[in-house]
């Protein structure tokens, strides 16, 4: 592990890049903001530009350096030196180590061990730290908010700023006992972080640019010569794989929707109201359409169908697993 002096030295003429993976509502952007506020140098925080929704996978980036010119860059971060994952359910959904510099750190809020994590992400040239932030959050904060706690693990492995500076930033942002409890939780996290230094990982080189050339152009997607004129995406063509079919909106929600075939009258009100076409229907032998189930891969549990059903044929059950912590407070 690099010493505090080595990190501070690296920050003089290099930029340290961080990436946070979370779900909308878990506070990933707040965590990255706090890094900028706690750092006694130049810093910028950007969300991944676009529309964030409750429960959807989100990314935010941080650039920190004592050299103003380096932080002035307005690019998105391509080569992070540390990646923090607030919700371990994202590991199966997103390539969280994409672009992570060799010798960099993957920090995950989980109770999993490092061997399992290494297998999931398929990288043997990075170091891993884990923190059971959920446990600390429930114990100290009394609710499942882990965004500040993961910062404790982050500064344990990359001491870019001190605990005192972070505490000051938290006192500025939060009021009253919440602020104090967050500081206490972070201090606990620094001690409780499990650090697995990988003997195969090289020493991290902050001066090395790990961005893949032309990465921002997304080679592999159709070029302009392969796209239809007028920017129309026809449903029966395979040039562009149909956008929303590929998006696992089902991972965003906190409820599993359950359909009762016996009560259902096939009135189709749920089919009309569903924003994700997640109500599945088939044409029967009688020539009429019948409901056959709910597409859980796309259902983000907005509960519209449950509200609209006149015979209560649809019910809900709380999902098991980390995605449920994106529930609105």
């Amino acid at each position: 592990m690099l010493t505090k002096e080595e990190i501070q030295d690296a920050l003089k003429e290099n930029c340290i890049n961080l990436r946070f993976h979370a779900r909308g509502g878990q506070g990933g952007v707040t965590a990255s903001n706090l890094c900028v506020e706690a750092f006694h140098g130049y810093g910028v925080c950007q969300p991944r530009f676009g529309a964030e929704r409750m429960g959807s996978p989100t990314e935010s980036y941080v650039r920190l350096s004592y050299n103003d010119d380096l932080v002035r860059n307005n690019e998105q971060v391509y080569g992070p030196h540390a990646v923090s994952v607030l919700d371990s359910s994202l590991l199966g959904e997103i390539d969280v180590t994409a672009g992570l510099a060799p010798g960099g750190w993957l920090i995950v809020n989980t109770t999993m061990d490092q061997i399992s994590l290494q297998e999931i992400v398929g990288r043997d040239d990075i170091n891993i730290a884990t923190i059971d932030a959920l446990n600390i959050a429930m114990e100290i904060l009394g609710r499942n908010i882990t965004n500040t706690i993961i910062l404790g693990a982050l500064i344990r492995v990359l001491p870019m700023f001190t605990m005192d500076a972070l505490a000051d930033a938290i006192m500025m942002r939060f009021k009253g006992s919440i602020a104090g409890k967050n500081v206490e939780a972070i201090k606990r996290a620094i001690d409780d972080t499990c650090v697995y230094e990988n003997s195969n990982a090289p020493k991290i080189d902050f001066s090395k640019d790990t961005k893949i050339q032309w990465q921002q152009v997304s080679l592999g997607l159709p070029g302009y010569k392969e796209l239809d004129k007028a920017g129309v995406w026809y449903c029966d063509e395979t040039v562009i794989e149909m956008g929303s079919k590929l998006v696992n909106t089902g991972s965003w929600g906190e409820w599993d929707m359950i359909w009762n075939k016996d009560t259902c009258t096939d009135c189709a009100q749920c089919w009309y109201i569903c924003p994700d076409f997640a109500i599945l229907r088939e044409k029967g032998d009688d020539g009429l359409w019948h409901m056959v189930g709910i597409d859980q891969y796309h259902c983000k549990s907005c509960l519209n169908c449950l509200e609209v059903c006149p015979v209560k044929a649809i019910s809900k059950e709380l999902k098991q697993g980390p995605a449920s912590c994106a529930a609105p407070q």
Partner: protein
Amino acid sequence: MPLHNRRGKKMSVEPMKLFFKEIKEPVETAMIGNYAVAGGVTQTDPDVICAFPITPQTQSVEGLSDVVHQGRLKAAFVNVESELAAMSYATAACAAGARAFTATASQGYLLMAEGLPMAVGWRLPLTMMISARAFNAPNLSIWNQWEYCQVNSELGWNIIVSENVQETYDASILSVMISEDSLFPTIFVHDGFIISHSVQKLTLIPDEIVRRMTPKKSRHTIDPSKPGVWGGIVTPDYFMEGRISLDEAKKPVLGQMKSTFDKFKSETGREYNLIETYNLDNSSKTAICTMGSLCGNVISWMTKNQDIGLIKIRAYRPFPVEELRKIVEEHNIEKLILLEKSDALNGMLPPFSMSVATALYPLKTLFRSFIVGLGGRDVTRDEFNIAKKKMETVTDMKGSLYTYLGVRETKQKIVGVDQ
């Protein structure tokens, strides 16, 4: 009827809390571009705020509604049904003597178009923020592009462009100063999402200093004791005289902007200019010329490419033609790389490049225009490296003067890149 949250307190946007009280000394803080603008506008004490929300401009209006709602700002916050209504209302309020602010982006700017010329014609010191975002064609995009260059830029509004959050906060105050000195409306622009949604550190100016820089001066207004016809029809006997008088009045505006920047510097210590230059006396006698957040990317890239300079245009309208000529001549710049986040679809140069080309015409400086970053495509060192390489072989002004950079031709080929 004030909105309340569950704890019974008035709702508020967290970062705006800094602006609820008098700011007594320079405060260093960190916030996104849009809230910084909302704060800056709050400090200039507008009488009327009237804007319609559109991504990526929304939080600026949201922040202002909050300070008005909390009673910090004694302004009329007017909800309207469209951008055209916002522009019409803000123009009329300004004509009646109010200090007025509005904000928009992309399609909203297009919907405003009918109302835009009047604030210029009536010499109204209106200010508007634009969070630059692409126009929707052939697909919808909410991301960054320089749409403010593509239309409406010849209507006579002043336009200043900001690189980062500090600059856009300062521009919200500078615009009021420029508008009221020149009696022409001013737009200040930052790049949508890239600046509007990035958290950056900035230093806030104490309220006392802002008040001193933006005093409310008396000017011509609609006044019942002095009846007149505003915007009435004229026959061809009069119209051209009206236009030339606007042109005459526009001539001193660049000078007024300069003295505004000087005044701002003496009060805050932060130095701005119509055009800012970096490392122009370099070995290759080549410079990149661009605006907005791209300048930050270029400056970072220049730490490793010290044979290239940067010319950063802050005042886009009126365009500082003489100043640009002088800079290019004084530093013996032989080649210019123009980076532009808009295109023109007519075989000629895109609008920003066209402005630069007009200024450069008597100097015969070699240049090429590179179209980058449309609809939020990130612009990185790859684009700068290839533009620099392409420019090395340019020896004349023949052939097409513009190319797109960073765009896929096929799944495996990038336009203009040999792989």
